[in-house]
C-alpha cells in the first residue's frame, strides 16, 4: 500500500472536484434558495464517488475504460447515440471551461476578452501537448486547492449552522408557488448533474488505464473517490453558503463567474480575491483539460484507436487530433460571443439526459464475474448503485421539461 499515492489521489480529487458548472449552479442555488439546496450536493457527491469507484475498479481489474463498456454493453446503435450526445456535451463543457479561464485571465490582466479566449485555448493546447497524464492530473488538482479559501470565506461569513444543517435534509419548500417550484426542482437537478457530469467518469476510468492500475491500486481508487470527492463536495457547500449570505438578502441571481470571487474579496480583501481567482483559474483549467481529453478518450475507445497521454502524440494520431479539434471548436464557440455561464447551464442539463447510458454499462460490468472475478460489487454498492440509477433516470426524464417550465431556472 502506497500512502503517498493515496494521499496525492485524495488531494487531486479534492482540488479537481470543482469546475465551472459547480461554480455557477451552487452559487446561484444559494443566492436564490438560500440553504435549501445543500442536500442535492450530498446526493451528487455520493453518486459520483460510487460510480467513479466502480469505473476505476473496472479499469484496474478488467482494463476497460468507460466507452469500451458502453459500446460492448449498450450495443452499436445506442453506443453511437451515446457517443454523439457525449461529444456534444463534452465540447460544450470544454467551451464553458475555456471561457472560464478567459474570464479569469481578463480579470487578472485587463486584456480584451476575445484575446484572453485565444490565450486560454493556446495554454490548454500547450499544456496538453507537453505534460504526461500524471502531471496533468496532479498539477491542476493541487493548484485547484487554492479554492479551499472558499471554506474559510464561508466560515468567516458566520452562517447560521442550524439553518445550514437543515439544508442537508431532503426537502421541497412548501411556500413556493408553481413557477418557483419548477425553478427549485430545476436547480435540484442542476446541482446533482453538475457534480455527476459524464466527462468526470470518462476521464477517471481512462486515467486508471493511463496510470496502468492493477488490482493492487484498488485501495487508492476507493479512498481517492470516496474521501476525495466527499471532501471536494465541501467546496460546493461553501459556494452555496457564500451565495446564500451575500446574494440572497439582496435578491441578486449572480450571472457572472466573477461574482464567485466577491465573497472572498469581502472577507479577505485583495489576497482573498487573488487566491480565489487562482483557484478558479486552475480548477476550470483542469476541467478544460479533462473535458478535451474525455472527448478524445470517448471517440478513441469507441473506434478502438490507440490512445493515452502516456504516449507521445505521434503514437496516438487520431486521439491527439481529436483533442486538438475539440479545443479549436471550443474556442470558436466562444468567439461567437456566447456567455460561458449560459453554455454551462445548457451543458449540465443536457448531460443528465445522456447520463443513464453512461452509468448503466458501468453498473452491469462491475457485477460481471467474467470481467471482474472476485472484484464484483458488494451488496451495499449494488443497492446504492440501483438507487442511483433510479435517481439518474428520474433526473434524465424530468431535466428538459423542468428546464423549459422554469425558463432555465429564471422564474
Amino acid at each position: 500500500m502506497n500512502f503517498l499515492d493515496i494521499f496525492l489521489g485524495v488531494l487531486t480529487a479534492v482540488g479537481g472536484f470543482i469546475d465551472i458548472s459547480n461554480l455557477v449552479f451552487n452559487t446561484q442555488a444559494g443566492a436564490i434558495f438560500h440553504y435549501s439546496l445543500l442536500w442535492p450536493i450530498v446526493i451528487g457527491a455520493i453518486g459520483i464517488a460510487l460510480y467513479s469507484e466502480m469505473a476505476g475498479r473496472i479499469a484496474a481489474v478488467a482494463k476497460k475504460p468507460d466507452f469500451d463498456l458502453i459500446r460492448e454493453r449498450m450495443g452499436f446503435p445506442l453506443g453511437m447515440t451515446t457517443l454523439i450526445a457525449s461529444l456534444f456535451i463534452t465540447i460544450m463543457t470544454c467551451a464553458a471551461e475555456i471561457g472560464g479561464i478567459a474570464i479569469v485571465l481578463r480579470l487578472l490582466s485587463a486584456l480584451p476578452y476575445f484575446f484572453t479566449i485565444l490565450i486560454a485555448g493556446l495554454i490548454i493546447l500547450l499544456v496538453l501537448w507537453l505534460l504526461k497524464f500524471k502531471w496533468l492530473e496532479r498539477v491542476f488538482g493541487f493548484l485547484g486547492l487554492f479554492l479551499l479559501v472558499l471554506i474559510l470565506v464561508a466560515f468567516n461569513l458566520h452562517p447560521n449552522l442550524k439553518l445550514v444543517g437543515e439544508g442537508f435534509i431532503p426537502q421541497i419548500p412548501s411556500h413556493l408557488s408553481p413557477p418557483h417550484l419548477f425553478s427549485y426542482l430545476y436547480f435540484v437537478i442542476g446541482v446533482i448533474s453538475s457534480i455527476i457530469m459524464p466527462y468526470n467518469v470518462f476521464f477517471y476510468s481512462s486515467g486508471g488505464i493511463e496510470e496502468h492500475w492493477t488490482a493492487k491500486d484498488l485501495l487508492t481508487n476507493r479512498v481517492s473517490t470516496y474521501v476525495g470527492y466527499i471532501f471536494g463536495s465541501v467546496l460546493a457547500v461553501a459556494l452555496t453558503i457564500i451565495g446564500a449570505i451575500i446574494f440572497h438578502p439582496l435578491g441578486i441571481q449572480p450571472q457572472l463567474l466573477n461574482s464567485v470571487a466577491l465573497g472572498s474579496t469581502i472577507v479577505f480583501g485583495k489576497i482573498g480575491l487573488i487566491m480565489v481567482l487562482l483557484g478558479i483559474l486552475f480548477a476550470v483549467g483542469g476541467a478544460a483539460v479533462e473535458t478535451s481529453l474525455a472527448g478524445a478518450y470517448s471517440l478513441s475507445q469507441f473506434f478502438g484507436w490507440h490512445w493515452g497521454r502516456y504516449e507521445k502524440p505521434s503514437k496516438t494520431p487520431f486521439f491527439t487530433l481529436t483533442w486538438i479539434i475539440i479545443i479549436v471548436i471550443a474556442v470558436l464557440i466562444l468567439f461567437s460571443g456566447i456567455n460561458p455561464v449560459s453554455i454551462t447551464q445548457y451543458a449540465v442539463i443536457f448531460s443528465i439526459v445522456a447520463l443513464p447510458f453512461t452509468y448503466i454499462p458501468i453498473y452491469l460490468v462491475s457485477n460481471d464475474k467474467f470481467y471482474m472475478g472476485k472484484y464484483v460489487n458488494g451488496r451495499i454498492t449494488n443497492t446504492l448503485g440501483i438507487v442511483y440509477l433510479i435517481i439518474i433516470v428520474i433526473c434524465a426524464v424530468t431535466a428538459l421539461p423542468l428546464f423549459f417550465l422554469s425558463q432555465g431556472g429564471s422564474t
Partner: protein
Amino acid sequence: MNTKKYKQPEELLLLPRLLDCQIMDKDGMRCGKVDDIAIEGKPGQKLIATNIIVGVGNWHKRKRDIFSRLFVWFIPHTTPRQLPLAKIKRVDPLIELICSKEEIYISSLEKKITSVLSHIPGGK
C-alpha cells in the same frame, strides 16, 4: 420446441463476447474493434468462426438502423480487414494479437497525421 433444455455450445457463447471488443497488437498498441465475425458453414453443417472483421466499412452490413446508416455515410468507406482467428493470442478480456499493428493495416490518413505530429517538437 422446448427451448429451456437447449444449451448453446460454449464456442457460440464466446462470440457475443468478441463482438465490439478492443483489439491490441503484440506491442500493446490498440488497433481497432471487432466489428464483425466471419463464420463459414451451411445450414445443418458445423459452423466455424474463421476471421474477425475490423473496419468501420462493415458497419452498414451489420446494423441496418437509421443511426448506423447516417453515421457510416459520414465516415470514409475503408475496406474491412479480415483477421484469421489464428492471429489471436488470447481473449482476456481484450483481444491480444500475435502480430503487430503494422502487419495488419495502417490507413493513409493515419500515416499522414502521424507524420505531421512527428514534425512538431515534442510530438515524437
